[in-house]
């Protein structure tokens, strides 16, 4: 019963100001408090690691993770959390892409031109900013590896999507990867994603950038719940978020950071390949 828990703690992530994130998710917090009848707290740590720690340590009850971060949590403790819902794009899919890009004036137009150049990942726990490109890029052609100093001159972590974009734009690194939904037009920075945010903020001009690589679709990260939560709490939360699109479109917009068709149920099976990929990386 909901009475078995004394409070409900939600971890939130994303490339926004911590306070902006808190504010966007305020409606979710209020709904949760109403639905469960216990005080609900939001936590917006600086990076994935904090949320993963919280989930594994059992001090967070719910979070919206990236696929890779979910895999990390699963690998550390398979019994810690279970995926319950995933965001559905406007076209009904639940995937996005990792986009490789470079500055136009560097004359790099594809991964072929990146040989010997500096390549940047984002956060090591990011699916599109590290995990998927680190596995898919080496399949681009023979001889491509992600070892620093092998195919690429140097491989770095910039710390996050925003930093990658700025670093490429500044010329600190020659190419990097970030995420985008892959819909809409390049010159707008696609319909949503880190590039679009940077364009909207006036940080970069898409005319200065070119796309050099695009991954296969990556499953959107799941909303997870702590496994040891009482069953009725889980059920209530799934119902709440699942029904959000019908109940409150503004709140859906706020928590999914853009236009979407709301959330649909999902299970661990959708992430098995990501977990395997991450496991391979951890050896």
């Amino acid at each position: 019963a909901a009475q078995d828990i004394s409070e409900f703690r939600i971890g939130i992530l994303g490339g926004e100001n911590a306070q902006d994130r808190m504010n966007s998710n305020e409606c979710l917090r209020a709904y949760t408090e109403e639905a469960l009848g216990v005080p609900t707290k939001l936590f917006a740590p600086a990076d994935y690691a904090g949320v993963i720690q919280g989930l594994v340590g059992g001090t967070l009850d719910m979070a919206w993770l990236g696929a890779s971060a979910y895999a990390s949590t699963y690998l550390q403790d398979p019994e810690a959390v279970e995926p319950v819902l995933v965001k559905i794009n406007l076209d009904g899919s639940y995937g996005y892409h990792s986009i490789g890009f470079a500055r136009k004036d560097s004359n790099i137009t594809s991964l072929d031109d990146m040989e010997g150049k500096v390549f940047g990942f984002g956060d090591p726990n990011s699916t599109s900013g590290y995990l998927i490109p680190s596995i898919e890029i080496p399949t681009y052609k023979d001889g491509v590896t992600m070892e620093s100093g092998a195919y690429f001159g140097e491989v770095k972590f910039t710390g996050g999507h925003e930093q990658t974009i700025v670093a490429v734009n500044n010329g600190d690194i020659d190419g990097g990867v970030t995420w985008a939904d892959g819909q809409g037009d390049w010159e707008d920075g696609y319909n949503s994603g880190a590039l679009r945010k940077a364009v909207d903020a006036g940080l970069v001009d898409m005319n200065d950038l070119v796309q050099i690589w695009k991954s296969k679709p990556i499953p959107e990260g799941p909303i997870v719940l702590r496994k040891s939560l009482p069953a009725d709490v889980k059920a209530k939360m799934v119902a709440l978020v699942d029904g959000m699109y019908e109940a409150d479109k503004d709140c859906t917009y706020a928590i999914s950071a853009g236009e979407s068709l709301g959330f649909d149920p999902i299970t661990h099976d959708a992430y098995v390949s990501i977990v395997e990929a991450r496991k391979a990386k951890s050896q």
Partner: protein
Amino acid sequence: MAMLDTNADLRAQTEQIFRRKRLITLAVPSLILAYLVYIFFSFDIAGLWQRADGRNAQILISDAYSYKTHVTRDNRTGAVSVAIEGEKKGRYPEGESPYWVDLGETTFVDLEGGHSVTFGPDLITYVNPDIGTSTFRVSRSQGVVADYPFPLDEMPEWINASKNRVAITTDAGRLTITRNRAEVFRYFTGWELFFFTLDSPYHGLGFGALLSRAVHGEAGAILSDFWNNPMWLHKEVAWAIFETVLMAFLGTFGAALVALPLAFFAARNFAPMMWVRMGARRFFDFFRGVDALIWTIILTRAFGLGPLTGALAILITDTGTFGKLFSEALENVDEKQIEGVQSTGARPAQRYRFGVLPQVTPVLLSQILYFLESNVRSATIIGAITGGGIGLMLTQAILTQKDWEEVTYYIVLIVLMVMLMDWLSGLIRARLIKGDEAGH
């Protein structure tokens, strides 16, 4: 000795001394210089200078004291919206606009100095008083079709154009056109909406007007509108500052309480057994050597995210620091006082209470208060990594790289907070140590 020295001897001797002194005085700066040269190359400072991005510095500085208002036209629906900083929270209500924007079938945006932009039903026009009028037409298939008042091969560098996108940047503002939308910003000086957002009835009122309304019973509402300002988040910022100070306070004093008894085990005169002392010291070294930041990461697993974790991380590190400092203070105590108390037949606890504590309290207090101030700064950093507080808000604002005015606001607050703590701890130190507390 001296008597045998002839003047010539003395001269030779002194000269030699001076040669050595010269060598030393020259050697130290030379070594420093050599090290700096090594660093110059190893940190690639020359290369850095080339890579340094002046434009970023400019964005940072100009954004710190100014804001921009976006006028955006959705090219598919033709709808025009006006928003401060382009954010939803700063959006003007439907149909309203600032004085320099004329909404309508054709929207006219005045950029001052003769520059202007017009969003027509089909055409977008940009008027530059020096160059002339450029017009743009957007189509799904052809992209952005431009018509400039100059030949295409004389394209000025402030226009960045490609098939699907045109960006024009001038001092007056910036115009971007893509197939989906067209957008103009205009820069204004100041921190717009700092007090009230557009949806507040008090937005735009002068101080006098506000005061008179406040007197007429609206003070609460005015304060609440300011306090809950969704753009500047004063309430959250205040909480964050408080949380930061709270972490520092709990961490520092908690550490002092834990370290005080432990320090006795590390002081030569109180722990005669070598291995106890060494054990205690290595224990302190360990707590201090693993930085607060790493403790934060370790503790997050057990205690979750939040200020308590940050406070505990400070507590653990400072236990190490205080343990060392306190044990040094204890080693310097005056034995006479202890012996005096001991000679009356006092028990060990009483000996420490009356023979030792009154001596060390001023020293310890001053150290604790000094650390309180420096921990406020550490708490900012710890918060930035996981805990919360103003540090998190600040680093996030910096990392997302757009809200420089908020960054400025936070930095000013942090500097004020640290200076306030510095001043306060100085004040308490002076009071407690000089003032007659009679050692109780």
